[in-house]
């Protein structure tokens, strides 16, 4: 079987203690929450941290607080199963519950956390491979080292080793594969980042960057502790996921839509965010603008949906053909908009 490389394991009891440890270890440490993505990747030597700092023992890092009218606070260690099945949360934000409920399999959702899913490493089928496989293609930019050489996620970049997806370029094209991030961005959620230096709150949208290696703005010394959701206040949300099978698979396209309509059906607010097509959740502002102030009709929705076709530029590094994924973007956007407006 694939074996885990050796590592030190720490289980602090508070976020402050965890932040202190992170500061002490520096970039050689890695946070682990549910571990459903970290451990398989360590077995494949995609990264080999000296120390893992587990968030599992921090009791105050789990739970869902708030209400429909006040908004919700999701502690980052809350499992995806809890997010998917929380009764008032799923009533307020059905799209978020849906997204959390289609991550991988029931068993992994019982382990995996909402914070972990938001910080999920980007994926690429040149990168998510065993050590032997990656050695066979002479490595890639995102995991450039051989076994035994320490390398970390989202920090290292070896300019001499190209991205295998687009070898001519100077960036990594690994794909944002989190189901919940597009919904959080669409909902205008805020995330709380805690480090030994203090705390900052940023919009979920600003958590992500267009880079397969440095895919989050969260610094390695920061811990994502909470997600703040605004009051639902009439926002309707949904999430549609393209994947080969009804379980297990990461999204190769995820469409999150959040919108508000006036009494007369006029759309007053709209967010359309796509996952699985780039290194970050992509918001389609042009499409949103075309809808705001309009009453939805089938023709309008089809027209708007078509505008995502051009900018949706998936690469050949996930399941399905590239062109197919590109072609599905407008179809899924249309279906999501129809679901919310009809």
């Amino acid at each position: 079987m694939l074996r885990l490389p050796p590592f030190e394991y720490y289980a602090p009891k508070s976020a402050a203690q965890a932040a202190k440890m992170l500061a002490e270890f520096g970039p050689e440490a890695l946070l682990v929450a549910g571990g459903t993505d970290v451990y398989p990747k360590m077995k494949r030597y995609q990264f080999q941290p000296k120390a893992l700092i587990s968030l599992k023992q921090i009791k105050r890092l789990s739970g869902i607080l708030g209400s429909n009218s006040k908004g919700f606070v999701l502690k980052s260690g809350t499992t995806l199963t809890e997010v998917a099945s929380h009764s008032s949360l799923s009533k307020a934000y059905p799209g978020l519950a849906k997204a959390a409920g289609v991550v991988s399999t029931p068993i992994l959702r019982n382990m995996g956390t909402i914070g972990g899913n938001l910080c999920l490493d980007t994926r690429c089928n040149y990168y998510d491979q065993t050590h032997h496989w990656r050695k066979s293609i002479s490595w890639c930019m995102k995991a450039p080292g051989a076994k035994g050489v320490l390398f970390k996620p989202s920090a290292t970049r070896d300019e001499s080793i190209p991205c295998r997806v687009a070898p001519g370029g100077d960036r990594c094209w690994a794909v944002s594969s989190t189901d919940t991030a597009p919904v959080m961005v669409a909902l205008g959620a805020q995330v709380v980042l805690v480090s030994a230096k203090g705390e900052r709150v940023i919009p979920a949208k600003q958590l992500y960057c267009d880079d397969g290696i440095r895919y989050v703005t969260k610094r390695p010394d920061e811990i994502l502790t909470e997600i703040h959701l605004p009051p639902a206040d009439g926002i309707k949300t949904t999430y549609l996921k393209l994947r080969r099978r009804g379980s297990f698979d990461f999204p190769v396209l995820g469409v999150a839509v959040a919108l508000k309509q006036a009494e007369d059906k006029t759309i007053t607010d709209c967010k359309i965010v796509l996952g699985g097509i780039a290194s970050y959740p992509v918001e389609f502002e042009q499409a949103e603008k075309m809808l705001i102030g309009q009453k939805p009709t089938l023709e309008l929705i089809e027209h708007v949906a078509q505008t995502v076709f051009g900018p949706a530029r998936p690469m050949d590094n996930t399941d399905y053909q590239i062109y197919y994924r590109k072609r599905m973007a407008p179809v899924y956007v249309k279906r999501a908009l129809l679901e919310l407006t009809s």
Partner: protein
Amino acid sequence: MATENYSVIGKPLPKVDGIAKATGQTKYADDINLPRQLYCKLLRSPHAHAKILSIDTSKAEKFPGVRVVLTGHVMPTEFGIMPSSQDEHALSFEKVRYVGDPVAAVAAVDEETAERACELIEVKYEILPAIMTIEDAINKSEPRIHEKHGSGGNLSKIVALEFGEVEKGLQEADLVQEDTFFFQGNTHLPMEQHAALASYEPDGKLTLWSSTQTPHYVHRALAKVLQIPESRIRVIAPPTGGGFGGKDDPFSHEIAIAKLSMMTGRPVKITLTRDEVFYAHRGRHPVLMWVKTGFKRDGRITAMHFKSHLDGGAHGSYGVASTYYTGALQTVTCKVPAYKFEGVRVFTNKPPCGPKRGHGTPQPRFALEVHFDKVAEKLGIDPVDLRLRNLVDPDSLTVNWLRITSCGLRECIEKVADASEFKKKRGKLGYGKGVGFGVGSYICGAGLPIYWNDMPHSEVHIKVDRTGRVTAFSGTIDIGQGSNTVLATIVAEILGLMPDEIQLVTADTDLTPIDLGSYSSRVTLMMGNAAVEAATNMKKILCEAASMKLEVPVDRIELRDHKVFDKANPAKSMAFEEAARLAESKFGALAAVGSYTPPKKPGTYKGSGVGPSPAYSYSACVAQVDCDPETGDVKVEKIWLAHDIGQCINEMLVIGQVEGSVYMALGEVLMEEMEYRNRMGIHKIPSLLDYKSPTTKEMPPVETILIKNAESRGPFGAKEVGQGPLLPVIPAVVNAVYDALGVRIDEIPITPDKVLKALDLKAQGKEPRVGPTSIPKAPFPPALKVEPPEEWKSQLMSTL
């Protein structure tokens, strides 16, 4: 024969090993550990095709915890499953032929150490261009993947056979239909990765435990490569966690750990990782096919010409047989008056292909049944009626000399069409929904052994002791298909006991008599017949002893419900245990044997060894699909499958095999693909997550219909069910997609992008078809002309 007459045969009793498996207590190969055992890891090639210039193991040898580092130089003898293609080295030392080809083995105190030491082995390679496609392999004879093997250049095998006058038949046709098809390669994906443990003892005897379907052939390969007598080697196959053909070959890792154990004097264990299982492969060959068939206006076939091009990967494996199988069984479902087959298998720099459920026949079956669907439409004949019009007869010989005995295909077709309301639904379910139909047939065991010999293919020993305990010994290996239950049920039926009372000793070359292995759907029929003979012989002994005591003629004695009794007067009886004691008192040790040798093959031409079987199972399938024209998604709503089983030994197991076959077929037709990045010469997705195989969420309801017409050559009339039911499912789904959307996908898997591409072509007014448009020009030799059997000719005359 009605099932009611039996006490256990045909009953849906639980598997004898079911509880242990369901509760996780079954000990698979990886569960076995020995004191002082070492762990082995293999260093595998990172290149698809390269010469090995040197291997330096010195650093690895010095690594703390390493006991031995092994390279192939010390085991230069070539091996392989087929005598005609001994083209593998236990560890490659001259060249590597695919990414994942094993080049060195390390034995160390633990797995991590062995893995780290592998990294310290320095191999210098001279990289050669990789041959990655069928076309390249046919067109480029250089660089040669095998210098010393195959049929020249990069051809692994090339054959051409003609039975009767094909050209004449095509000229007499009213419609000549020509099609090309491609069947993508896929793999077995057993839940259990291959695992093995070798222990070389101080007395010079070697024992190997391995998750294999063929302990006997592994035994032979070990003796050959290690150059020690077979009498000093013992191979044990513990219960195997799924095979499907993926554990039919002797493998590098088995030989390497045996050698490492000999070198260290310690047991050595290996368990492959999932990506290594993808590299071990031996799965479904990708096959490019071309078929041309002549039909009369009324739907009767006049002649058929079939060509297949198989992508064999880096080694021969079962490829010679696979090649013939792509051409052999076309004729066992429909009468083909004249038939020509040309087949070529090529070497490519990919993991070797071999046998997977249906071995070499799902590909041509897909082609044939879709081809017939197209013809049915052109001729305005219902697809069901087209099959019935060409139906083979029971007790007949085919044009290519295959002996058909029982044939329940007519009942399969009629019942599956009725149950699914196929004729009512076809073309009438509305856009996006459709039904499709297909048939198939499979062998109940290969008529010939893999290496030429005249001995039995399966033997069973039965021992009864003075406590009445019955033990059956058989070389068969239960790979999950239920062969243990079949053995126990047959013995129990004959001796009047329950299956869970029969002790089983299986798959141990020291303790059990020969069985060739769990492949070619041979076990129920061959082991079953041997078990019937052995149990009947034991029954005779017990009856004779009881007859004297009960003072009843021996032919009136029967065994049932733990009793030995007078059939005419059942009150006159004794317990089974008492009969056992009486028999031992009278005859001494109680042992009985049985064996089975298949009938001689009817044909004598070169190539006639592949295809003959004691009997053929038949299946027919209707698939109902719901397609989304906007996304190209194909959802299978329901499968109806009728299977001619002859007689169930255990009905629950039979239905389980049907459902498992349907599941596997759906994976092959809709999503599974051995995809390679050809430029890099590497498997694209060697993992359980990324190699897409259906989940329970994709599995539709299956309605199984069993046709029970006893087969005279089968034990209690039984035929196979492990492989045959897979065959018609694939074309049935493909034909259903056509019924739903009016597009032809002549290439599987039917992925959503192909469906959309075909719909685009339709919208543009072009031919709504996705699939290969041409075949490469293979250097087929002039066909070997074979005269069809006399008997066949007269039969054909009577039907015309």
